[in-house]
């Protein structure tokens, strides 16, 4: 492993977190490359190999639809996230394809200012290293707790 691979992944993950925390959700689908896969599940489902997600998208179109639904259709109280990411661990490297695991903590800030730890967990990511960057192909968001607070509107 070269230190530049780790650096590319850190950059890609920071860009992803800022995109969501800055409420630039329209840009979120474009952070995925190639055969896109994004899902949110829990540690117990992940451990038991259960396939269903709280969110499941296997195309960029499905990510776009989620953003459109949040913007145009779904009704929920305004809120923002703050992502705090741990250092990525490289799990495997196969040519240009790199798998990593990164811990996260997401605080949720409601419109009345109430701030709480909304979710903790791990990102299991697959990147393709190309053009001096790490291009995200798959992200499985594994929340530590199986209890989800009322509403999961914004992507993690």
């Amino acid at each position: 492993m070269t230190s530049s691979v780790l650096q590319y992944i850190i950059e890609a993950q920071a860009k992803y977190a800022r995109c969501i925390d800055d409420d630039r959700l329209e840009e979120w689908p474009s952070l995925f490359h190639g055969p896109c896969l994004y899902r949110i599940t829990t540690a117990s489902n992940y451990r038991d190999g259960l396939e269903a997600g709280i969110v499941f998208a296997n195309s960029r179109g499905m990510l776009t639809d989620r953003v459109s639904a949040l913007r145009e259709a779904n009704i929920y109280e305004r809120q923002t996230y703050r992502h705090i990411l741990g250092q990525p661990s490289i799990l495997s490297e196969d040519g240009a394809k790199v798998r990593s695991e990164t811990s996260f903590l997401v605080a949720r800030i409601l419109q009345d200012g109430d701030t709480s730890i909304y979710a903790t967990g791990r990102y299991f990511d697959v990147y393709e290293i190309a053009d001096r960057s790490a291009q995200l192909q798959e992200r499985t968001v594994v929340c530590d707790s199986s209890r989800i607070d009322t509403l999961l509107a914004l992507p993690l």
Partner: protein
Amino acid sequence: MNKIVLPPEAAGPAPWPAGLTRVPYWVFQDQSVYADEQRKIFQGPNWHYLALEVELAEPGDFLTTLIGDTPVIVTRDTDNEIYAFENRCAHRGALICLENRGKHRKDFSCVYHAWNYDPQGNLTGVAFKDGIKGKGGMPDSFKMEQHGPRKLRIAIIHGLIFGSFSEDVPSIEEYLGEEILNRIERVLGGRTPVVLGRFTQVLPNNWKLYMENVKDSYHASILHLFFTTFELNRLSMKGGIIVDESGGHHVSYSAIDREAEKDVDYAKQQLRSESEYKLADPTLLESFDEYHDGCTLQILSVFPTFVLQQIQNAIAVRQIVPRAVDRTDLNWTYLGFSDDTPEQRLTRIKQGNLVGPAGYISMEDGCVGGFVQRGIAGAGDDHAVLEMGGADAKGSESRVTEASVRGFWKAYRANMGL
């Protein structure tokens, strides 16, 4: 004699208004009502969903769950029968089992003093029962068979395990009635479900506000704008609701109207539905014909706290567990079936996006109960109005009605003596 329960701080008596069209808000707020519900509803003559039979497929399998506040262990013993008993040691009341689920369990031992139970809930061992070297130990008058956690009656219907603390509860067939039974059979009959995922959604409201929402066919097209925004509503849909005799169980369904589909106007209407918003990936809603009856949605509830859902090919059971006056756990189990093709399985997983805490058509349901709980904070003496579709609690071909919500309150009041 049941007495009317009132919030202790109420300025004056606010008895339940006559008829089914008013619901006093104190019923969602009062601690003594909550305590009464535990006794009269959750430990009373009702059937409560515990688990799916496939979750306890082999002897030695077990899981823990809740009926209201009361912790319960559900097992499959070596005789291949399902058993359930209170998860409370007969000695000093500690939890007997701390795990959510597991396999190959021959007995359960309380961690506190190692009192031991078989998978049917019988007390089979008391540590140091005879003392040590003739000293200490239990008196001769102590008989193990006279001590044990409460055992539940069990009923299994199309793979759904229900339990009851009550000896007086009618048989599950009588409890549900034929129409509800048929609608459960429609979804699960003769099939082997496969668990695709389990999620718990923590709701910031009284459990009854969620049950009202489940039974409220009036709100669907108003609160949930996903289908309307993306012009996914089919103009040729017909539907209706079924409410059982007790009022407590209901079915709301919608189906494709084959006659209307042949209509020339219908085709024109479809051409005209040019929405500003289109799904970028419409495969989300590419369903397969699973039931061959044109019914694309069936929401079924069993009093007090069970829901069986078919939304296209998204099948799920929901177990509602009250945790406090203003807190409720909603346990989702997403299902497929053992004979699903890989394509069908993927369809179900994609349609999982419609439900749960991030569901396109159910994320609002998780929040709206909290909006009511917060809205009524200062209005314990006031009441909700349930007059849509009349004043009764009967089934109808219209879904623009609150009849099944009124039905819930009919059953609730009968249980509570209110």
